[in-house]
């Protein structure tokens, strides 16, 4: 039944196509026509699988009437003989903003006061970036200039949508005609569109990537609640519209490979398989991309070569950027090889005219032509359920097709005409005479040299050879077989000869004027027919066969293959067990299956094991950094007092070189914390630093933590005078924020308990699922644990009391620079402290921070960790721990635990990490010196039995990077010499974060702004 309805709808739509708008009054006589055309003797590519030789295409009223080799052409048909030419279905782009109003991206000034509420007036949702009510169909207008641009490269229809916001409403399928919008608009509400880009929204929330994820997820839940009865409690046009998008093909715009994975994960939560617009770097993580099951919309925006003639300039470009330049054209081919379904898009191309060069380059790199055609015709049509309308040449479909000189994918192939809804748009003259050849020239009857015509029939190139030596390139225009030629015969004596003429068989002739005004006639007679030059071997520098290898991650120091766990026996080392045994001298440790198998003396290596001599070296646990912000795309969702709903796991950057750098400092596990911009921050992600793995593979989901914060950042004390709007502005307010939120979380929990206990739920609106309160409810249930950024004793004392009275526990106080003043209270409640070794003096709340803090807390019975909050310091945490020996006289064994076992305890991971004991994870470091010594560095760093950093290997990697860069730089220079467009050397790098960093306010560490 549904199908029938759809077909009917389609019919109705078709019905209105071919005719002018019946409801519109006419000026002058009616001008209805049959629009019946037949194209004969053509090679017709019906669809990527079917090609007809000597076929006929018959169209009428803007629709295809018949296609075949045996088509009867009725009388009254305009017939065009297309012998030697090709007909293709015209192309379809699903990622377009054609005919949409311009989106003015909000340039938020962080010097201006925050905007907490939506600027959109009316009964809409609360957030300006959520615009499900936006309809491309109502926004659409015909843009003849852009339509022309797209038609020239072969497109006939596009799926267009307003690229504004996180939820962007519905898209519309439109034909690229110059006729009225009524005719161009084929179908409104054809698709639903999403992204994580807030677009023109000036509202503060969300101001981070993880905030955008949370907002989108919350909107799905809100819409669900709204549909299940929430609408009786609240009128909300946005949620209503969001519900109406359900069931439409859902499109998600992303910019990079990790973005694709992120989008797909959101879809999985809500049972939606998004069609994802990718960034063109999917080849770098092809297995994971394939595993999403998503169909991609792939751009052809390959990067330009870098202008690297100056070696010091070249240093500004990273290995990853150079490699991407080389490999990006192979992205579509890689997707095809992996059987990932995808369409191609023109979006992202600065110049749309480059489209075919890019497609052909992709084909050169191994993209099968049929796949390419499918990606531009049948597949996109199927994705938006328009396969009966566009994308192929079948009876009843729109008469949207191309007439081309040749196989579209062949170099030099040209599009002559692009027919849209049965109307021809001439791109190049199809029957341009082939003038090519060599002609004898005569002026006023006397021989006057030769005219050589080469190039292609539609784009001939002219050359005049006047005497033996003088060769001139004249200016020639040729239209409708009339020709104008101008040239300067003598460079020394300025003066232009002007000729005008016409073509006849094998001859050009006409009148001319000499520089002095003397008239004369001229003639050019074909003397020698044109012969096609032997095709030069393609010297394109980016030849697929010469390509460099993929590395994981796609960054300097990446590995060509993912490292594997080994069986290793470390012999005769000084082993810091962190167990009752303390430090064992001349001990052996066996590592098997990613675990520590045995610890002892005189162990023998099992068959196949690698033995590493630890003589004179120290074997310890990997360092665990309780407070880190490396490997993140963003750190603070600081726009609201609470952002408990955001998850750092959504923004893990597995390609961050700082992962490798931490390994080089013996770090194996890091807690990636939200920043400290608000009282209730976001959910942390604890990761193991498995260099080369994906975000998901690194993440330990069982470690459920959340960042809280107290002090100057929360009350925005150092954010300037404009930041005096958001509650709270004082420590008094902070207390109330906690009471308020936890009391709401309790009520929320109760509401769900009551609802879940109902025997008969019918007719009862369930409570609204609230991601923020979910996280707080988990804290109350002791399922999620708090790490609270804190400095001064008054507020810490406050939080401890709030927690006591509401019945939750503060797990860890981080920074905790005045922890020494409350160490007794912390110890009493079992609250841990994770602190800096010696930071102070950078703001008022650290004025009483002392380097003896760790020692004082530790002696009072607090579990103390030393953390970094800094990508650089993290790789010297052993040195930082050693400062507790200097300041406060902590024993070396205890000092070492502060960066290993103690953080493991604070993260509730000490059952598998933090000490060297049989059965625990083999996260180990072999140091060349006493690990607390300033002279120590790792020989290797291992996670779960896999060596991710090896000092010897590192030296080799540096050489390999230098070599690979040198090769790519040579190739770039060849490309430049070969005329490729280039870009100035520049590099983009993601920011180093500190928890103090609020976007735009604080610059990188050490820089003043």
């Amino acid at each position: 039944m549904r199908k029938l309805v759809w077909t009917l709808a389609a019919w109705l739509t078709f019905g209105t196509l071919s005719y002018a708008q019946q409801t519109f009054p006419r000026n002058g006589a009616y001008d209805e026509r049959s629009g019946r055309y037949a194209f004969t003797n053509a090679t017709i590519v019906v669809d990527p699988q079917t090609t007809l030789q000597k076929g006929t295409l018959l169209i009428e009223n803007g629709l295809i009437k018949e296609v075949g080799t045996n088509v009867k052409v009725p009388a009254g048909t305009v017939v065009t003989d297309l012998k030697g030419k090709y007909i293709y279905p015209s192309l379809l782009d699903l990622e377009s903003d054609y005919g949409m109003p311009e989106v003015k991206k909000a340039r938020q000034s962080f010097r201006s006061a925050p905007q907490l509420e939506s600027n959109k007036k009316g009964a809409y949702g609360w957030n300006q970036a959520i615009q499900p009510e936006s309809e491309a169909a109502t926004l659409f207008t015909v843009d003849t200039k852009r339509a022309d641009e797209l038609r020239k490269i072969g497109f006939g229809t596009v799926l267009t949508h307003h690229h504004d916001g996180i939820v962007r409403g519905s898209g519309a399928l439109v034909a690229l005609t110059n006729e009225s919008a009524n005719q161009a608009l084929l179908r409104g509400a054809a698709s639903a569109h999403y992204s994580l880009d807030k677009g023109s929204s000036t509202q503060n929330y969300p101001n981070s990537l993880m905030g955008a994820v949370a907002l989108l997820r919350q909107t799905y839940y809100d819409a669900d609640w709204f549909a299940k009865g929430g609408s009786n409690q609240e009128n909300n046009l946005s949620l209503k519209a969001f519900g109406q998008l359900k069931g439409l093909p859902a499109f998600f715009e992303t910019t990079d490979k990790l973005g694709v994975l992120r989008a797909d994960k959101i879809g999985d939560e809500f049972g939606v398989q998004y069609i994802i617009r990718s960034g063109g770097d999917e080849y770098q993580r092809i297995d994971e991309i394939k595993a999403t099951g998503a169909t991609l919309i792939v751009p052809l925006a390959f990067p330009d070569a870098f202008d690297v003639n100056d070696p010091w300039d070249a240093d500004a470009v990273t290995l990853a950027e150079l490699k991407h330049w080389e490999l990006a054209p192979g992205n579509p081919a890689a997707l095809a090889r992996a059987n990932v379904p995808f369409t191609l898009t023109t979006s992202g191309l600065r110049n749309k005219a480059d489209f075919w060069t890019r497609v052909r380059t992709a084909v050169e790199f191994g993209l099968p032509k049929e796949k390419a055609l499918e990606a531009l015709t049948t597949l996109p049509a199927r994705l938006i359920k328009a396969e009966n309308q566009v994308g192929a040449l079948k009876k009843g479909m729109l008469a949207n097709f191309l007439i081309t000189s040749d196989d579209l994918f062949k170099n030099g192939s040209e599009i002559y005409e692009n027919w849209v809804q049965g109307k021809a748009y001439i791109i190049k003259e199809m029957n341009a005479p082939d003038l090519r050849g060599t002609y004898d020239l005569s002026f006023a009857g006397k021989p006057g040299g030769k005219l050589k015509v080469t190039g292609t029939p539609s784009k001939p190139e002219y050359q005049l050879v006047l005497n033996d030596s003088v060769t001139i390139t004249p200016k020639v225009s040729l239209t409708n077989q009339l020709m104008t030629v101008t040239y300067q015969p003598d460079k020394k004596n300025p003066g232009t000869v002007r000729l005008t003429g016409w073509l006849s068989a094998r001859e050009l002739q006409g009148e001319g004027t000499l520089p002095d005004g003397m008239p004369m006639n001229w003639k050019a007679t074909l003397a020698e027919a044109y012969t096609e030059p032997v095709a030069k071997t393609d010297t394109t520098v980016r030849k697929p066969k010469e390509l460099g290898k993929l590395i994981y991650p796609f960054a300097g120091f990446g590995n060509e293959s993912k490292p594997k766990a080994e069986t290793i026996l470390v012999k005769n080392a000084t082993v810091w067990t962190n167990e009752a045994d303390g430090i064992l001298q001349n001990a052996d440790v066996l590592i098997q299956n990613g675990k520590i198998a045995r610890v002892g003396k005189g162990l023998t290596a099992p068959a196949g094991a690698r033995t590493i001599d630890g003589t004179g070296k120290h074997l310890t646990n990997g360092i665990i950094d309780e407070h880190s912000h490396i490997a993140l795309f963003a750190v603070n969702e600081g726009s609201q007092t609470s952002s408990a709903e955001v998850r750092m796991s959504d923004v893990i950057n597995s390609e961050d070189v700082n992962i490798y750098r931490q390994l080089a400092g013996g770090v194996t596990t890091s807690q990636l914390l939200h920043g400290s911009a608000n009282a209730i921050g976001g959910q942390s992600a604890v990761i193991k630093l498995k260099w080369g793995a994906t975000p998901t593979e690194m993440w330990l989901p069982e470690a459920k933590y959340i960042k809280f914060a107290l002090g100057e950042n929360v009350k925005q004390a150092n954010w300037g005078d404009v930041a005096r709007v958001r509650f709270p502005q004082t420590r008094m307010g902070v207390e109330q924020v906690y009471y308020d939120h936890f009391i709401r979380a309790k009520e929320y929990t109760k509401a769900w308990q009551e609802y879940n206990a109902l025997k008969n739920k019918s007719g009862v609106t369930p409570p609204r699922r609230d991601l923020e309160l979910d996280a707080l409810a988990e804290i109350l249930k002791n399922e999620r644990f708090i790490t609270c950024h804190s400095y001064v004793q008054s507020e810490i004392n406050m939080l401890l009391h709030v927690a006591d009275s509401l019945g939750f526990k503060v797990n860890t106080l981080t920074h905790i620079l005045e922890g020494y003043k409350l160490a007794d209270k912390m110890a009493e409640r079992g609250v841990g402290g994770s602190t800096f070794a010696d930071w102070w003096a950078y703001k008022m709340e650290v004025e009483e921070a002392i380097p003896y803090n760790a020692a004082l807390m530790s002696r009072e019975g607090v579990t103390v960790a030393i953390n970094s909050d800094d990508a650089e310091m993290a790789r010297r945490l052993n040195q930082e721990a050693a400062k507790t020996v200097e300041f406060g006289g902590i024993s070396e064994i205890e000092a070492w635990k502060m960066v290993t076992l103690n953080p493991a305890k604070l993260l509730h991971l000490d059952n598998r990490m933090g000490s060297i004991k049989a059965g625990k994870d083999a996260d180990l470091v072999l140091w060349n010196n006493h690990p607390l010594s300033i002279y120590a560095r790792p020989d290797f760093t291992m996670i779960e039995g896999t060596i991710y950093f090896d000092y010897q290997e590192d030296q080799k990697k540096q050489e390999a990077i230098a070599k690979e860069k040198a090769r790519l730089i040579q190739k770039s220079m060849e490309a430049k010499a070969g005329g490729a467009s280039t870009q100035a050397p520049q590099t983009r790098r993601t920011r180093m974060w500190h928890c103090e960093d609020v976007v735009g306010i604080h610059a990188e560490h050490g820089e003043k702004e």
Partner: protein
Amino acid sequence: MKKIFLALLALVPLSMQAQNPAPANPQSKPIALTGATIHVGNGQVIENGIIVFDKGVITAVGGSATTFDRNATEVVNVAGKHIFPGLIAMGTTVGLQEVASVRATLDYQEVGDINPHVRALIAYNTDSEIIPTIRNTGVLMAQAVPQGGMVSGSSSVFNTDGWNWEDAVLRKDDGIWVNWPAFLARSFSQEDFSITIKRNEKRQEIINELRRHLVEAKAYAEEKAPSPMNLRLAAMKGLFDGSTNLYVRAGYAKDIVESIRFAQDLGVKKVVIVGGDEAYKVATYLKDNNVPVVLDPIHRLPTRADDDVYLPYEQPGRLHKAGVKVALSYNDEWWRTRNLAFLAGTAAGFGEINKEEALQLITLIPAQIMGVDKQVGSLEKGKLATLVVAKGDILDMRTNVVELAYIKGAQINLDDKHKRLYQKYKDKYGQDDLGK
């Protein structure tokens, strides 16, 4: 020894002081420190050595056989300890800033681009609570440096003890500081929070402007009675007769070479490169031109993603080996200056440079660069008795426990705010007295 030490400690009133301890009185009688390992600072190490000083000046340094008048001298047995020259922190804002977020406490940056005439000298606050904390890791001298603009101002070198700047200063106005416009500029995107680094197209203008000021300063310096008087130009006079340094903050290799050529071309006699992230690329050039380098804190990440991960740690060793004079600094991170010794330790641990050479990067070489090596920088006869007695290796955190410190022979009170708070809370909790 421990007894002596405790006895000395007892002299310091343990009552809670709300402010910094009083500066030390001048040395009143000869002192001999005996039994320690003496790290002279020129590479020489004396086991079981003796160092004697009087009226603030070292009178003898040597092995256990060194003779001195035992009757007239206070002999302090520091057997098992290690003696080092007082560490010198170059390029700091010590004394010029107190609490970073409180504007009223910041005195290191003037308005305007060309400020050669502003002087760190008179802003140096001897009562800063930071100063006693940095003495406690062995930093006994610090160069206070104005920041910002194109020409930031004039620096001075101070002892980290004194009643006022006049009392504390070791060398007034030792150099003029210039910020060389960086070859590559960075811009921050508020959209994706990324940083783009590309060629700085606006720098030539700045260089031209700098050139104009220096050319005019040189001409001005030639006038006997210049008229009209110009404070800015007058302040740069010393650059052209070699009496003051030109410190150029430059990081990229191109900037380094370009700025040195620029200064030489204008007749500046002594140029010092500060920052020097890429100095290793032009080590030969630096050596050939006899230009020293003061490196930015080497506890930093590599500049570029593909750089050797340990490059900043290794660089001092590489430069030193290539024959370049290198000093280490904590630059404007005033409170972190107390970690200066650990920069040298890291350089020794990761680079091709031994511990005694690494020690010179924070003692003798800074003294040479700033023109105070006749007075300080090493423990040699005739130099000032500015020295530290530590529990062990001063470059390693575990043994960098400063037990005694002398500036010009005067014994420094090693109390500081952190120790006071430590004591206060040890008392509260009844914890044992452990560690420093």
